[in-house]
């Protein structure tokens, strides 16, 4: 069964039902609406991003569905990204964040995980100044506050 998805810029994408249902949001929409041919609108996702998301879902269509376990919420490792996923995520920063936002909106947990791990890998090994530079972040600390925070948490430094 094919599902039609419409992006922000009104482009239509036809995907198989099991691929579309990797997104929990879409899965719930399908369940609510029932069997229908009308396209599902995704006003928060542009076509370029939606294309990438569909590519991911198609590659991972046979993966076991991740179990929702709210209680554990463990720390994630960022060094266990599959090779295909790593290549998939070799995009510019803008697209990376768009993919993460889309994965969050569409509720595709594995894609969200991979996106966040990719960002974590960018952060790896960088000093605070370098991090600010890469992501264009403004430092809103005064030097005293900065020193205070560091002193307070210096036990975490040499872990």
């Amino acid at each position, binding site marked *: 069964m094919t599902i039609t998805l419409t992006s922000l810029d009104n482009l239509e994408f036809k995907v198989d039902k099991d691929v579309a249902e990797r997104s929990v949001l879409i899965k719930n929409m399908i369940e609510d609406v029932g069997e229908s041919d009308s396209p599902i609108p995704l006003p928060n996702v542009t076509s370029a991003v939606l294309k990438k998301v569909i590519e991911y879902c198609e590659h991972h269509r046979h993966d076991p569905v991740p179990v929702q376990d*709210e*209680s*554990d*919420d463990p*720390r*994630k*490792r*960022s*060094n266990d990204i599959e*090779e295909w996923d790593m290549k998939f995520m070799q995009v510019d*920063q*803008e697209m990376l*964040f*768009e993919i*993460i*936002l889309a994965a*969050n909106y569409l509720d595709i947990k594995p894609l*969200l*995980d991979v996106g*966040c*791990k990719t*960002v*974590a890998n960018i*952060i*790896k*090994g*960088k*000093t*605070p100044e370098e*991090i*600010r530079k890469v*992501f*264009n*972040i*403004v*430092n*809103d*600390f005064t030097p005293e506050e*900065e020193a205070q*925070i*560091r002193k*307070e*948490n*210096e*036990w*975490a*430094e040499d*872990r």
Partner: protein
Amino acid sequence: MSIQRLPVEVLGHVIRCVAYNDLFRCLTVCRLWSELVQAQLYRCCVSAVLDHPQLFEKFIRNRHHVRHITLQTISTFDSKMDQLTQLLDLSRPVKQIQSGNAGAAVEVSAQSVITAASTLSLQPQDNGSAIKSMLVEGYFYDFPSLYEFLPRVASLTRLEISFVKPFSNLEQIPATDVEHLQLKTILDSLPNLQHLSLLGFQFQQWPTSPEEQESELVRKCAGFDHLNTHSQKAIANSIATTAVVSPAVAGQSLGVYKHEYIPRESYKLKSLRHDDTLLHGVSIEALLSRLPNLEQIYVTTPSGTSSGHGARMDPLQYTRILQRNCPKIKDFKASGPWRICLFVPKLIPARQEGHITASTTKTWGKMSTYYGPSGVPIEPLNTWAGYKDLVEKEDDSIYPEVPALPLLECLECPGNDTLSSEDVGQFHRFKNLVEIDISRLSSYTLRETLPYRHTTPITGKDVQRILEDIPRLRVLTASGFVISWEDIESDDGEEDEISQVASSDRPVKVARIRRWSCEKTLEALSIGFRLPSCSIRQNRAIWEQIGRCKRLEFLGLYGSSLVMSLEHGVDAILELQRLEEIRNWNSLFPFPNLPALEALATRCRALKSIRIETVNSRAVRQCREAKEVLERVGRRELWKVGVDIN
């Protein structure tokens, strides 16, 4: 676009993926990041933190970030309980919302909460705590009253308390009320609870209403509706003496077999772990009938101990109660010698007719004795003893078995030894079973001697059958079992296959084996293989089979002579791109072939650990050589050696 576009919770997700040694540097990037990083740093509070006063103080200041507490007290004199009290801030008064007066919050001091606890079912309320999980293990002679700290942690989704009783010579330490728990109070005050594990406690009776007691009575009689009135009355009388209702009520209720008491309250609880002390004080039915969402059950029965409370709950009854009340069970774990019943007989069908007389017995939980048509006493099919009795008569057609927990996905019973070869042969009847752990912890097994047909012990042949017959299997842990060549060789009389092997210039003959249907899905395997010789023909067949399990992440080969032929098989497993860990090769010869080791280290990029457990001195020497090889290819971190427990 910048990272500022990400919503806070997504940024929090990113921070959770950042490696620990990078977190400190993220701390001073900007205010938002600082807050998120601190939330991450103080998220988990473990025992080690409590040992360092300065660090502990920091955690107290950042109490609001703490989500997970793990406490293990090793010694009886160092129980860390007052630190736990500080962490949970028990001295702060609790806000409690009175029912019927919605909107008005009343400040109640902790003291009055304790006194009210026995009569009042604590309502969940907002007290600022967001703690998600608490794991506490140790000696709790000064544990704060449970009723005192439960309101503080209403947000808990996971609670695990393991109470180790102090030694008898420390009896002067006063016992607190913590020992005798009222499960209902715990479940009522923790509405979000999904995982509960309570070990080492005594439990009070679950409070049941008269309707519930009556209904339980009816259930005990279930299956006897084909009997004549006289027999029914007799049964009612006998059961009435062991229950608390009068014979009149019992007789009345027998006329209404469809009457089923469905408790009004049910809890969200998904996972329950308990030990056999739970099986005594509480009516298991009363508890489990309120846990319809239960997906995971874990029973711990310490081996060799007699809990001194009389017979443990009959395992067949326990399974039936699970079957009736918890339809969603996916995960069944049992440790200790608890007899696992996965298949239960259907209840006595109408054919079991005839005049039945009954006599009463006084033992708790035991049903009356009934006599079959030929005058031979039979036990009813709700007890393990009854089941044994009927099966011994080998009347299988009357008592077909059904899988008790049809949705079962995961079965773990390491060291249990009560499962038999016949049980294992029926595993394929569970359509969703994907994870099995039947490992033997030691070669000496303490088995219940049952005069019963299901006593054939599990052998390597059964393990091979599991691999062949269960197509979606993901995890199989069967360490302690060994598959021998006769178990795996194919008997279809076909010619050997021809294979290219890296260790030989010419193609070699490879024997045919019975293939594993789970090779496409298998992710973890722990088993031993024993082959008669180092012949390439046989060993290569097994290496190739392992190599076909493309999703394999964990390989445990215990006591395997297979390892001796590694050089002939290594190229078959180099394609396993997901292989992360190899454990416990043959402890006598950890690494017979160093080039093979090198190949593994360089080609299997996901490989993180090769772990040997051995104390053999020759092995230790080989270990040194192996470490040098790994050093040369820059993979020194792969090698891990532990001490052989066996």
